[in-house]
């Protein structure tokens, strides 16, 4: 990926943060620079996908427990909590180009947050929330930093481990029959194999937005399968 003086201004351009003169200059540059044109297209795709991610509330209302933990009243409208619709409406994402690939992956993985929360039902302790996208901002300011891909992946690993444990309990208790267990195991092997292949490809080409997205997508799919499998476990009770 080649870079020039305009490369790091592309996200500001998308956010409408450039002045008229800068905007015109950038557009003229992009028209004659295939690399910047391609990066701009990737940025647009990432932002579009980020905006398309549903802010679905978890099936269990977690706010009372969260409120208790942070020592505020859970009655009425939680102080400082904005509506999902309002948050979505103002969601803007700014990335510098070096962050682009990781941003795409993190955004996709964050889509699994709902699945992770859904598993923690009832009165069980409130799990740590997925890392917020520090890159989301609501106005002008310094280029924001993105929560690290590794940090998000660590949370993912914890979620996967917990779900695998729940699945294992379903196996041991006999709540999942052997044929279903075989299918689930086979499917997990299929996904793990895809994850390994994607990781290898990414190791060879860490800047590829597609490979970052694909890896995150496949990891999210594993999480989703585990979540569904854990839900199947009580089916025979």
């Amino acid at each position, binding site marked *: *990926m080649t870079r020039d003086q305009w490369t790091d201004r592309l996200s500001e351009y998308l956010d409408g943060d450039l002045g008229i003169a800068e905007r015109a200059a950038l557009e003229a540059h992009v028209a004659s620079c*295939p690399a910047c*044109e*391609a*990066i701009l*297209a*990737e940025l647009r*795709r990432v932002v*579009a996908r980020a905006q*398309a991610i549903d802010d679905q509330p978890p099936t269990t209302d977690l706010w009372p427990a969260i409120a208790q933990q942070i020592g505020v009243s859970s009655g009425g409208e939680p102080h400082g909590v904005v509506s999902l619709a309002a948050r979505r409406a103002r969601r803007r994402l700014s990335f510098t180009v070096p962050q682009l690939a990781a941003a795409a992956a993190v955004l996709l993985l964050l889509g699994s947050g709902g699945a992770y929360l859904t598993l923690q039902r009832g009165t069980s302790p409130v799990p740590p929330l997925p890392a917020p996208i520090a890159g989301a901002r609501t106005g002008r300011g310094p280029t924001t930093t993105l929560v690290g891909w590794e940090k998000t992946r660590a949370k993912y690993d914890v979620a996967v481990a917990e779900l695998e444990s729940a699945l294992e309990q379903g196996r041991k208790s006999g709540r999942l*029959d052997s*044929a*279903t267990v075989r*299918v*689930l195991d*086979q*499917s997990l092997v*299929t*996904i793990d194999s*895809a994850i390994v*292949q*994607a990781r290898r*490809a990414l190791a060879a*080409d860490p800047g*590829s*937005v*597609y*490979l970052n997205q*694909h890896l995150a*997508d*496949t990891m999210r*799919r594993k999480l989703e*399968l585990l979540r*569904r499998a854990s839900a*199947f476990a009580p*089916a*025979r009770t």
Partner: protein
Amino acid sequence: MNVAAVVALVVTQQTDTTVPVRAGMRLDVENFGGEIVVRAWNQNSVRVQATHSSRDRIDVSAERTTVNVRAESRRGLAQMVEYQITAPTWMPLNLHGVSTDIEVDGTQAAITAETVQGELKVRGGSGQLSLKSVQGAVKLQNAKGHIDVYSVNEGLTLENVNGDISAETVSGDVTLQGIESANVEVNTVSGDVHYDGTIKDGGHYRFATHNGDVTLAVPERANVTVSVATFNGDFDSCFPVSVTTTTKHRFSFTIGSGSARLELETFNGDIKLCRPGQLHDKHHDDQEDN
């Protein structure tokens, strides 16, 4: 008649119950093993015919908003029941099974159908349609609405379907034919993806697989910006395209005004675009070869 047949005759029982219903009610059926077949009719009543063990009892209860159908056994959960149910076309269906095949025909209402081991076949349906199976193929035909189909280990087939579509499986092909939609998302980890349907202006279409080919019919007058990504695979098109942007594993091109967005991705596989007639012929030939 052998001994097994005699024993079967002794232990098998038929139940046939009809309950009146009114608009606004829904049908809720739970079954452990066997099948649930629901057919629609134009009467405001639900008829439940069940074949089951004489040790089991079929409980059909009409409450304020729901007709519940359950099987109970003196030993707990009934193991095997074959349901043949007839319900009004307007009645939403909520069908759950474990080792159960589920089939629905002719309804014009919302459907939720989930099974762990078993096939799902639905003809008809309108509104929210959610069909999920772990070990079983899912087939949906002649439906419209907001459609969500999922399987873990088998393929998904949608034919003559109108509305927003989300289709996902881990191991299996996903085939969509005769689709009328502005919003389609298809994912499989190991399987081919085939789409033949509308590309509407302003629509969003995403087809992704890890191990498999993606084949797509693009109508002649489509206005779409296409993004193609593959790691180990080739791209082929039955019609000329002019690539506008390229990165290492992805490139884009525009057809017409480009107002719709189409994303095609496969890690290990080929991507092919054709015109509707060409793709149908090729897909048909491929199926016959297999």
